[in-house]
C-alpha cells in the first residue's frame, strides 16, 4: 500500500480529460449523430502503393489455415490469400474464381469446371486433386472446421476429368452452391498441406494458396505481412498495393489513435465512438451488411411460454433510440431476422411479405396491457448478452428498464466473450437463461441459411421451437430451385416465425471501414470476410 496510487488515479482522470479534449475537436456535441450515408461506389485506385498497414481489431489470428477461416481475425487476412471455386461480387452475386462454370444436370449433381492456368504461389498448377483434397480436408471432424456444416447432404466429391470435379448430394439442398464461394471450398495445395501436417496455417508451417497475396512474414505477437502475388490469374484485378501489413490492435482507444496518427492506414469495424473523429481525417465509409441483431427465446418453458409475454417483449424494444443512440445512425430497424440486404433472390416476394410484418416501434402501453393479462409475463426472465459488444450492453440495459416500466422482470446476465461463445455450443451454458441477445451475419444472401436453424430438432434451435407449418415451408424451400417459389416458402416461414415471436429482430448494422486520405477503391461490404478485398485498394 504505497502512495503512487493517488498519482495513478489522478493520471487516469487527467488522461481522460486530455483524450476527451482531443476528441472534442472533431466530435459532435450530443449522444446522437447524423445518420451516415451508405457508400456503394468509390473512385478506382490509379496509383501503386508500396505498403498499406491494416489493423485487425479482433486481434492476431490463431491460424491462417483457410479451413479454419470462420472468425474475423483469420478471415480478414486469409480472404486475401486463398480463393474458392467462386467469389462474391459487389452485389454479393457469385463470380467465377478457380472454377469457370458449373453444370447442374439434376437436383443432386454439380459438375464443376476448373480454371485452366491457375497456379499456386510457388508456380505449380491447381489440379482437381488439390480441389478435392481441400474440400475433403474440411470434412474431417478432427480438423474442427466450422465449415463442415455445409456438407450435411453431401454424398461425395470426385475428380471426373482433367479440369473437372463432380459433387453429388444425397438429397437436394439449394443452399450448397453458396458455399462454393466460401472457405468451405478454398483451395490449398495438397502436397504442401500434407508436408506441413499439423503446422499448416501456423507461422512455422505457412500456407500455399492461389490468391492475390502470398504469405510473407509472420512475426507472432507483432504483425503479418502479405506480398503481392504478381502471377495471380485475375490479371484484370491486379492489386495496386505491393505489401499488406496487418497489425492487431484490439483496444478501441489505441485503434483510434493509430488510425488518427496514420500509423495504421485502415481497419474494418472501426469503433463507433471514433467515427466522427476519423470522418474528418480520411475515408470513414459505411455499407449495407448481411448482419442482424436479435433476441432469441431460448427457453419456452418458463415466463416466455405465454405468447403474450413474448409479444410484450417485442413492444418493449426502443427501436428508435437504439438506432439513433446505440448505433448512432449506422443501422436500420428490422421486422424480420434476415435483413432485406440478404434477399439474394425473389426480392419482390420478400418485400411484399416483409411489409406485412409488424412495424418495429416501441409501445409500452401495449406491453403493459399484455403483461397485466398474463401471470406468466410477470415471472423473472433472464436475458444473456455479451459485454464484449458495448452496443448489446446498452440494448440489454434499456430493455430491462422498459420491462420494469411494463411490469415485467428482466434479470440481466452479462457474459464474457468466452462464456457467450459457450452458449452456442454447450447446453449446460444455456441453463437458467431465457433470452439471448446476439448479433450475427450471413456469409451470403440466402435467408434459408438462418431460417433453417429454427426447424424442429436443429442444433441451433435452442428454444426447441416446433411448428409443423414452419418446418414444411423450410423443407419445401430447401429443394426449390426456382427462386420465386423458394422466396414464397421462405417468406411464409418468416411470417410464421414472426407470429410465434420465437425470435425478436432488432436491427441490421452497417459494415464500416476506414482508410487514410491517400487510399481509395474499397467499398465496405459484408463479403470482405471471404473475398480478396485488398485487391480493390490502392492510391489515388
Amino acid at each position, binding site marked *: 500500500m504505497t502512495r503512487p496510487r493517488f498519482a495513478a488515479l489522478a493520471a487516469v482522470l487527467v488522461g481522460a480529460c486530455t483524450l476527451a479534449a482531443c*476528441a472534442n475537436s472533431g466530435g459532435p456535441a450530443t449522444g446522437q449523430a447524423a445518420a451516415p450515408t451508405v457508400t456503394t461506389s468509390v473512385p478506382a485506385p490509379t496509383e501503386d502503393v508500396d505498403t498499406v498497414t491494416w489493423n485487425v481489431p479482433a486481434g492476431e489470428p490463431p491460424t491462417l489455415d483457410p479451413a479454419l477461416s470462420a472468425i474475423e481475425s483469420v478471415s480478414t487476412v486469409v480472404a486475401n490469400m486463398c480463393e474458392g471455386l467462386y467469389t462474391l461480387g459487389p452485389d454479393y452475386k457469385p463470380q467465377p474464381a478457380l472454377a469457370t462454370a458449373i453444370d447442374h444436370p439434376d437436383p443432386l449433381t454439380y459438375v464443376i469446371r476448373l480454371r485452366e492456368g491457375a497456379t499456386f504461389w510457388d508456380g505449380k498448377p491447381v489440379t482437381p486433386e488439390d480441389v478435392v483434397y481441400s474440400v475433403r480436408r474440411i470434412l474431417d471432424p478432427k480438423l474442427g472446421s466450422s465449415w463442415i456444416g455445409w456438407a450435411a447432404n453431401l454424398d461425395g466429391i470426385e475428380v471426373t476429368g482433367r479440369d473437372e470435379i463432380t459433387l453429388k448430394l444425397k438429397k437436394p439442398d439449394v443452399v450448397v452452391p453458396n458455399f462454393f464461394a466460401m472457405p468451405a471450398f478454398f483451395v490449398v495445395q495438397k502436397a504442401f498441406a500434407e508436408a506441413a501436417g499439423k503446422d499448416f496455417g501456423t507461422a512455422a508451417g505457412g500456407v500455399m494458396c492461389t490468391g492475390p497475396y502470398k504469405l510473407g512474414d509472420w512475426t507472432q505477437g507483432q504483425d503479418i505481412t502479405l506480398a503481392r502475388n504478381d502471377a495471380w490469374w485475375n490479371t484484370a484485378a491486379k492489386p495496386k498495393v505491393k505489401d499488406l501489413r496487418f497489425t492487431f490492435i484490439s483496444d*478501441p482507444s489505441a485503434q483510434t489513435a493509430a488510425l488518427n496518427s496514420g500509423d495504421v492506414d485502415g481497419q474494418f469495424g472501426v469503433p463507433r*465512438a471514433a467515427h466522427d473523429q476519423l470522418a474528418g481525417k480520411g475515408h470513414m465509409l459505411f455499407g449495407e451488411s448481411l448482419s442482424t441483431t436479435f433476441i432469441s427465446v431460448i427457453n419456452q418453458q418458463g415466463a416466455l411460454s405465454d405468447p403474450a409475454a413474448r409479444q410484450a417483449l417485442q413492444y418493449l424494444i426502443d427501436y428508435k433510440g437504439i438506432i439513433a443512440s446505440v448505433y448512432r445512425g449506422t443501422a436500420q430497424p428490422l421486422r424480420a431476422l434476415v435483413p432485406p440486404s440478404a434477399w439474394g433472390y425473389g426480392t419482390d416476394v420478400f418485400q411484399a411479405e416483409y411489409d406485412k410484418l409488424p412495424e418495429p416501434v416501441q409501445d409500452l402501453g401495449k406491453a403493459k396491457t399484455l403483461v397485466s393479462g398474463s401471470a406468466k409475463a410477470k415471472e423473472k426472465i433472464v436475458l444473456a448478452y455479451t459485454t464484449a459488444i458495448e452496443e448489446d450492453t446498452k440494448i*440489454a*440495459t434499456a430493455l430491462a*428498464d422498459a420491462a420494469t416500466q411494463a411490469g415485467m422482470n428482466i434479470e440481466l446476465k452479462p457474459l*464474457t466473450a468466452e462464456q457467450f461463445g459457450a452458449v452456442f455450443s454447450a447446453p449446460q451454458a444455456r441453463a437458467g437463461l431465457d433470452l439471448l441477445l446476439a448479433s450475427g451475419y450471413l456469409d451470403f444472401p440466402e435467408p434459408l441459411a438462418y431460417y433453417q436453424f429454427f426447424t424442429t430438432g436443429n442444433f441451433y434451435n435452442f428454444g426447441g421451437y416446433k411448428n409443423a407449418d414452419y418446418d414444411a415451408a423450410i423443407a419445401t424451400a430447401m429443394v426449390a430451385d426456382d427462386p420465386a417459389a423458394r422466396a414464397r416458402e421462405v417468406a411464409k416461414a418468416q411470417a410464421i416465425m414472426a407470429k410465434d415471436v420465437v425470435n425478436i429482430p432488432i436491427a441490421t448494422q452497417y459494415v464500416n471501414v476506414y482508410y487514410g486520405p491517400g487510399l481509395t477503391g474499397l467499398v465496405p461490404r459484408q463479403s470482405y470476410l471471404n473475398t480478396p478485398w485488398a485487391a480493390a485498394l490502392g492510391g489515388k
Partner: protein
Amino acid sequence: MTLTIPALRARSARRRRRRPLIVSLAVAFLVLIAVTGLLAPVLAPHSPDATSLLNSLLPPGTEGYWLGTDSTGRDVLSRIMYGARLSLLAPLGVVLLSGVLGITIGLLAARAGGWADAVISRGMDIVFAFPSLLLAMLVVAVFGPGLTAPICALAVSYTPFVGRVVRSVALQEGARPYMESYRVMGFGELWVTLRHLLPNVMPVLIAQSALAFGYALVDLASLSYLGLGVRPPDADWGSMISQARSAILQGEPWSGLLPGLVVLLTVVSVNVLGEHLGGSIGRKQSEGV
C-alpha cells in the same frame, strides 16, 4: 491581560491539537457522500436505472439532469448518489473482514510466539507478496462476477497489512510491565489479551483501516471498471467509469469523469483522515495520554 505560563502551555497544546482545515474538509466530504448514499431514494432526482436512449450523453447543466446523462440516458447524478451505497459499503466490508482476520492472526502470532509466530509471519509474507487486484480477479474468474467474491478476496489480501500492525503493537504491549502484572495476578492469557491488549491495539488499527478503506475502494472500483464487480444495472462508481469509455472516446467524458472525480475525492478524504488519525494516535502515545 497577562497569561501565566501554564495557561500559555495549555493554549499552545490546544492549538497544536486543533483539527487542520484539510481534515475538516475531508470529514465533511465523507459525511456528505455517506448521507447522500443513505438518502439516495429521497435525494436522487431520478431512478438510477431509468434509461432514455434518445436522451443519452446529455452534458452537465441540462435541465432536469444537473450532471448530464450516460450512454443509455441514465441520470449521472442519481447514479452517483445510489452508487455511493455499493461503492462505500463494499470497501467497508473489506476493512471489517480483513480487520477481524488480521486482529486474530496478529494477536495469535504475538501471543503464541516461537514457531507459531514464525509460521504465521511467513504466511502473511506470502499473501502480502500476491497482488490484491490479481487475487480478486482470479477469485472472480472462479466464482463469477458480483461483490461477494471480490470483497472476500480483497479481505484476504489485506489481512497481512492488519496482521502485521497488530502483531507489532501486541509485541510491544506484551513486553510492558502491566501485562506481566496481570499474569502474576493470575488472569488468563485470553482474558488479558482481549481485555487489556486489544484496546491498546485498536487506535492504531483504526488509523490503518481508514487507509485500507481508500485502497479497497480503488481496487473495487478497478474491478467494476473491468466488468468484474457489481452486476448491471446496479450503480457503482467504478462501473460508471467503465461504461463511459466509448463516450470519452467520442468527446463526451462527463459520465465517466464525474464518478471518477468522486472516487478520487473520496479516496483522498479517507487517506487524509487516516493519516490524521495515525498522527493523533502517535502523538497521544508519545505524550503518554
